């Protein structure tokens, strides 16, 4: 790791000031950033640690509205009793990220700001029609996730929370790489007042996306059987050492079926 200067932010306002220092980066759980710095793929001059800012932590559920602070860890999301009632699919998703030690440190804000094309949270937030709240504005999930490791966040802008309306039904199914524990394909289905939405992670050439084919079939009939014979095109899907685009296309339909079955269970 190259030399770096560490700053611990006391508040969001403090962090917004500190992040203007040199080539600073925001540090939350550090589960991606620190490994990237160790391999010198990332070399920020300064780190601004958000993890001790109390106002960024915790899950709030009020009626159907769920708000999760940006530095809430995967462990906290997975084990929040109110969330398990309001949107059990999201708590389950958090329990599938990395391993227990990673879940103790990694955060929802860090995950979405990084927007790894195989990360789990982007699929959930896109399917749930979530809003990402920053220190400057509110951004709809479908405008937020831009591509591989790309978001609509501006330089120095800080994710403070995410919020969404709990859907009537939802589930997440993940076919994970057993070594990295990232999704080879992950499918989040949600059925809410605005209809059915289905978001796919791990597979898209350009990151997380919504599957129109699966959404169309489920809009007519929200049942796993409605997906019999539905073909997801392999165009624009990733091919890598783990899986070809064709294999991923098939997996999307399979994971979607399992997710719908779980959502209806």
């Amino acid at each position: 790791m190259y030399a770096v200067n560490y700053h611990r932010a006391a508040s969001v306002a403090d962090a917004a000031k500190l992040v203007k220092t040199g080539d600073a980066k925001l540090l939350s759980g550090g589960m991606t950033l620190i490994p990237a710095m160790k391999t010198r793929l990332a070399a920020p001059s300064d780190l601004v640690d958000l993890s001790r800012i109390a106002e960024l932590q915790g899950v709030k559920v009020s009626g159907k509205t769920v708000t999760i602070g940006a530095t809430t860890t995967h462990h906290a999301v997975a084990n929040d009793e109110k969330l398990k009632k309001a949107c059990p699919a999201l708590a389950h998703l958090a329990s599938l990220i990395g391993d227990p030690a990673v879940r103790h440190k990694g955060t929802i804000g860090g995950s979405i700001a990084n927007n790894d094309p195989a990360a789990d949270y982007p699929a959930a937030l896109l399917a749930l029609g979530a809003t990402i709240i920053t220190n400057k504005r509110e951004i709809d999930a479908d405008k937020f996730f831009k591509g591989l490791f790309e978001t609509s966040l501006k330089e120095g802008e800080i994710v403070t929370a995410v919020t969404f309306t709990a859907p009537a039904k939802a589930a997440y199914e993940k076919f994970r790489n057993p070594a990295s524990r990232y999704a080879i394909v992950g499918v989040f289905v949600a059925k809410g007042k605005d209809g059915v939405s289905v978001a796919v992670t791990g597979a898209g050439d350009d990151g997380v996306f919504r599957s129109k084919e699966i959404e169309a079939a489920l809009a007519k009939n929200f049942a796993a059987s409605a997906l019999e014979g539905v073909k997801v095109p392999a165009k624009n899907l990733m091919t890598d050492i783990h899986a070809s685009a064709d294999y991923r296309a098939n997996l999307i339909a399979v994971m979607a079926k399992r997710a719908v079955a779980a959502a209806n269970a």
Partner: protein
Amino acid sequence: MSDVSLMVNGKRVSGAAEDRTLLVHFLRENLGLTGTHVGCDTSQCGACVVHVDGKAVKSCTMLAVQASGSTVLTIEGLANGADLHPVQAAFKEHHGLQCGFCTPGMIMTATDMIGRHPEGLDEATVRAELDGNICRCTGYHNIVKAILAASTTMKGSKGKAKQAA
């Protein structure tokens, strides 16, 4: 450089360290606590697991300065004098180690796991919870056996085990 101040295994320690110093290096090189190992250095193997503020974390994926102000428990802090912690005793009894390199991380992960499952553990849960700890000798069977045994022992003597953990 920053001043890093920690409570490690019940003792207050402090020292200056470069901001890029990883917690595991601070523990090993500044404090001489070499029980915590560096296996893969890529956040995967879990040989470096310690507890920070009561939660198992990979100390190779955290800066020492990030942990400043926190309470840290390492493998050296588990036993009560000559009395092994129930998880250590179970690893010994059930031959849960061969070369021993992964063992400190396995034991710190196991104590955290048992603490989070006061209702008890089954084999599938133990295996799933060991996702972040790699052992290249044992094939895991005896590690799983040891953790299940320790979980049962600690359930039986809750107050005492809690104190030790």
